């Protein structure tokens, strides 16, 4: 009976289907219990904090509505992670208006709840990611008020943009936006008031986009981050620039230039080319391979290389019937070779002598009968000669 109960209690473990976790960015078959894993919880908190910062930016514009310029529409965009859609402010007149409307929508609320139900352990942070209708109503009122105020000045701004967009309009925009710089919002994340590149280009004296752009740092409004301009030294150069079509300074012929082409080539030739390879330095014949690569490169360049490959060169080989190191086996082989050579030479000498004797005997027989004489060595002849003397 107990066995039956235990068997009944033991449910067969269900194999869950593979599912993709948007937070952890990987596939798993843990099922619904995945959201309680500590790693998932950590990643989820980081994930939600990142989105919180984005919503904080949007909340800034919720409390302080401002006009959205047409050229900045494409840059003012937010990706909603709950709805998986990109909110682009195309055709909107106020900054983050579409984002504000989206975050206040019921569909967004529904998606937040769904996301937290699936991924998050608790549902108490839903309000952090949505904008209430009351806030939206306040924002709309502020926008209408702002619209009425600047109805007249807007047209003036628009006309100025066409004539002097780099200089004067930038100043007026920065002046307006400094009013919004409220110390109460110091703790919040501030959105970029202007794009970094545009600001640097328009407010630095180094780059030359025409004469009307040289601006000193003293003219900058106080709320803006101070940037030192270096207009004095470079503005005096009359050698031309990219726009005038002048050659770059490193290509102009200069007598005082240290780095002449001939000197560079000389220096490069002196420096040995080290081929840095990713291969194992402990592989077989690594040192030999590196040396050989350098030699081959020198040969390619046409330099003379001391070649070690003589006619008698032999590779490193461990022979079958020899014991000891490969060097010993090579030395042994070279000894054997020398012996063979000597033996071969002696055999060839003897065979040559025999041939000579045969040829002489043949020739003598044809002409005269051969006179057989005993062999007398040169030493014996010399010895006899010395004795006689």
């Amino acid at each position: 009976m107990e066995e039956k109960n235990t068997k009944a209690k033991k449910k067969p473990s269900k194999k869950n289907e593979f599912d993709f976790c948007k937070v952890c960015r990987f596939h798993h078959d843990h099922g619904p219990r995945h959201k309680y894993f500590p790693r998932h919880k950590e990643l989820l908190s980081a994930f939600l904090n990142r989105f919180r910062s984005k919503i904080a930016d949007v909340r800034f514009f919720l409390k302080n509505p401002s006009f959205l310029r047409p050229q900045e529409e494409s840059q003012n965009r937010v990706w909603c992670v709950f709805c998986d859609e990109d909110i682009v402010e195309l055709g909107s007149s106020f900054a983050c208006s579409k984002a504000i409307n989206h975050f206040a929508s019921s569909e967004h609320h529904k998606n937040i709840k769904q996301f937290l139900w699936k991924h998050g352990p608790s549902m108490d942070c839903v309000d952090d990611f949505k904008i209430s209708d009351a806030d939206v109503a306040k924002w709309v009122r502020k926008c209408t008020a702002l619209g009425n105020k600047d109805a007249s000045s807007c047209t003036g701004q628009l006309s100025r943009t066409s004539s002097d967009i780099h200089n004067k309009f930038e100043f007026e925009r920065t002046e307006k936006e400094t009013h919004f710089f409220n110390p109460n919002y110091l703790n919040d994340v501030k959105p970029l008031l202007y794009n970094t590149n545009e600001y640097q280009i328009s407010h630095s004296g180094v780059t030359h986009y025409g004469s009307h752009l040289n601006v000193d740092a003293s003219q900058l409004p106080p709320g803006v981050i101070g940037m030192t301009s270096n207009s004095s030294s470079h503005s005096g150069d009359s050698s031309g620039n990219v726009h005038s079509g002048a050659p770059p300074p490193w290509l102009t012929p200069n007598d005082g230039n240290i780095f002449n082409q001939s000197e560079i080539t000389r220096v490069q030739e002196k420096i040995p080319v080290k081929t840095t390879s990713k291969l194992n330095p402990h592989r077989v014949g690594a040192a030999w391979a590196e040396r050989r690569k350098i030699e081959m490169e020198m040969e390619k360049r046409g330099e003379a290389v001391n070649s070690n490959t003589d006619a008698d060169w032999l590779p490193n080989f461990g022979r079958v019937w020899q014991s000891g190191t490969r060097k010993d086996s090579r030395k042994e082989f070279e000894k054997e070779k020398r012996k063979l050579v000597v033996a071969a030479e002696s055999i060839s000498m003897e065979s040559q002598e025999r041939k000579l004797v045969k040829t002489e005997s043949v020739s003598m027989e044809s002409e005269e009968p051969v006179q057989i004489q005993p062999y007398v060595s040169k030493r014996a002849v010399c010895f006899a000669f010395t004795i006689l003397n």
Partner: protein
Amino acid sequence: MESVLLPTLTKKEEIDRIINNTIDKVLVLRFGRISDENCLLLDDILEKSARDVSKFATVALVDVDSDQVQVYVNYFDITLFPSTVFFFNAHHMKLDSGTADHTKWVGKFHEKQDFIDVVEVIFRGAMKGKLIVHCPLPPERIPKYQLLYKDV
């Protein structure tokens, strides 16, 4: 089917050159003669697999009947044909295949994959600094022969 004509070496200088110019790759030298049947079978397998192993091995054939090559035939103690000797960075690589001679592979390969496996094992061992490697083939695929010491 592509047929790659493997270089046939007949001079000692040619063998020296190919040994010295093969860097960071296994050099496979087949010593044999064209008139031998086993040699022809081995050459067929070498030609077919030369391209597959081209990234880590170079294959060359040595004609044993040439006079200038006899010094290598004696140095490598080649008495049976065909014999295949392996080099890596001008260093001789030994192969322990359970036979009496670890310095070379004597005979032909059963199939292309056997040759590729042997060359791969040699390359892997050489890259790790090993001068002798174990043959990955089963004993039934390794040709059997008897080594005679000075015809004894």
